[in-house]
């Protein structure tokens, strides 16, 4: 059981979702975030004052998958999110010790069916 965390461009969210669905992965959680990475920000001028905005809007996906789904998930995310331009983001795979479906209480792999 793993937890995949991916940061992608907001406008790519739908493509990523699509790609994941095609890979038979339907369960995920999405958060609005701001992030800084290689991509440099943009500068706003407000009432004559200039400022460099270096935290850009991104979307964070969290996907808990059984070990055999890790590779397909990664592929799907890359397929959906990659533009080749700076700012595409990164993904992390974290170990999960236990998973539980609240409604049923069932645990372990099936939880993520």
């Amino acid at each position, binding site marked *: 059981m793993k937890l995949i965390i991916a940061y992608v461009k*907001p*406008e790519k*969210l*739908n493509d990523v979702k699509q790609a994941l669905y095609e890979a038979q992965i339907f369960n995920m959680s999405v958060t*609005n975030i701001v992030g800084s990475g290689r991509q440099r920000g*943009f*500068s*706003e*001028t*407000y009432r004559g004052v200039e400022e460099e905005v270096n935290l850009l*809007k991104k*979307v964070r996906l969290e996907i808990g998958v059984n070990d055999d789904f890790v590779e397909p998930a990664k592929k799907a995310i890359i397929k959906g999110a990659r533009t080749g331009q700076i700012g595409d983001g990164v993904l992390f795979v974290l170990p999960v010790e236990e998973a539980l479906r609240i409604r049923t209480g069932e645990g372990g792999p099936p939880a993520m069916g």
Partner: protein
Amino acid sequence: MFKRITASLAGLLVLGLVYTLPAWAEEAAKAPKINSLDTIWVLITAYLVFFMQPGFAMVEAGLTRAKNACNILAKNLLDFCVASILFFLVGYGLMFGEGNSFIGLSGFGLSGLKSTNLPIWASWMFQAVFCGTAATIISGAMAERTKFTSYLVATALMTGIVYPIIGHWTWGGGWLSKMGFFDFAGSTIVHGTGGWAALMGTIFLGPRIGRYGPDGKSKVIAGHNISLAMLGVFILWFGWFGFNPGSQLAASGTDNANAIALITINTNLAAAAGAVVAMFTVWAMFGKPDLTMCMNGALAGLVAITAPCAVVSPGAAILIGAIGGLIVVLGVTLLDKIHVDDPVGAIPVHAFNGMWGTISVGIWGQKALGLANNGLLHGGGFQQLGIQILGTVSCALFAIVCMGIVFGLVKAILGLRVSKEEEIRGLDIEEHGMEAYADFQIFTTR
């Protein structure tokens, strides 16, 4: 860019001065039969019509996305400002100056124009806010993808030249008025012109990214602030009590008093009927009473009654508004089918219902109320109806052709549309370097 504009602006200001000193001189001198009651009536209603500007601004901003709010607001503010100045320097002269039956050719900067029952300044003010309305209609349909400078240039040409010419034909004593064409407060002249111009702009632009899927299926791009949009609709309705009753251009005497009262009740009933019918229509067609469609319905009723408001009975007003409410819902669906992407429904509201309202004069209009001939249902036969159709169609065609040229040129020279990246990130950051809701967490996934 702005350098050139600034330069021309400087010139314009000086002109402004030159023009108007003599103009004023004459005025102050003689102004015989000016009527104070008429004057305050027209001024107050002009203020109400001005107030329609924030109405449009809130509707258009509310029905589009947060990332483009500053941009649409800026367009609504600046197009009115530019329109005011150009309509003072040029437009009013083209519309009401001495000339031929196609265009006026004097009175630029108001110089040499005479007062009527109203001071010339009051007449100008009332006409200027109408011109501003025509201009502002466009921004909604072209929202979320149009370059700021290109938009300003296009509205400048429209308010400075196109609108005044169309206006001259009917209100300036031009050929349509000679034919007996009746458009009391401008269903065709103001709303039609704006609406058809909006159609051309939208066609030249193409739909917003993501509005239609690769399969051609339409996608929802929901407005970001329905509360603001609702406020805007109420403000517009309020402003329309200036737009229609004010167009009587007089209030003194029993006849005028009766007229403005009748116009008021007709305006209100048509709007109410439009909203109710639009609600039931969308409810029937799509299963739920979509609030934005109810809003469009009220506006449709208002646009439709704008031409006939003075010459039809309240019962007819209800019918005209009701049909307007039906038209707007069908219109929105139709445009969606043919992939004309009009985020706020400006085209069905102003173009389609502007035409419908103008035609309805020929159906329910009454000679007893001052119309040249009775309408169809009052035994007047098809004469007035024919004139109405001819008039509204010619104005529509003229607007379509002229604005087609305008948008074509602007597109060729400046480009009409922002880049894909700008559109995705939002026009506020790219075009204005700012955000409308800095403190709020916004979804930018659409």
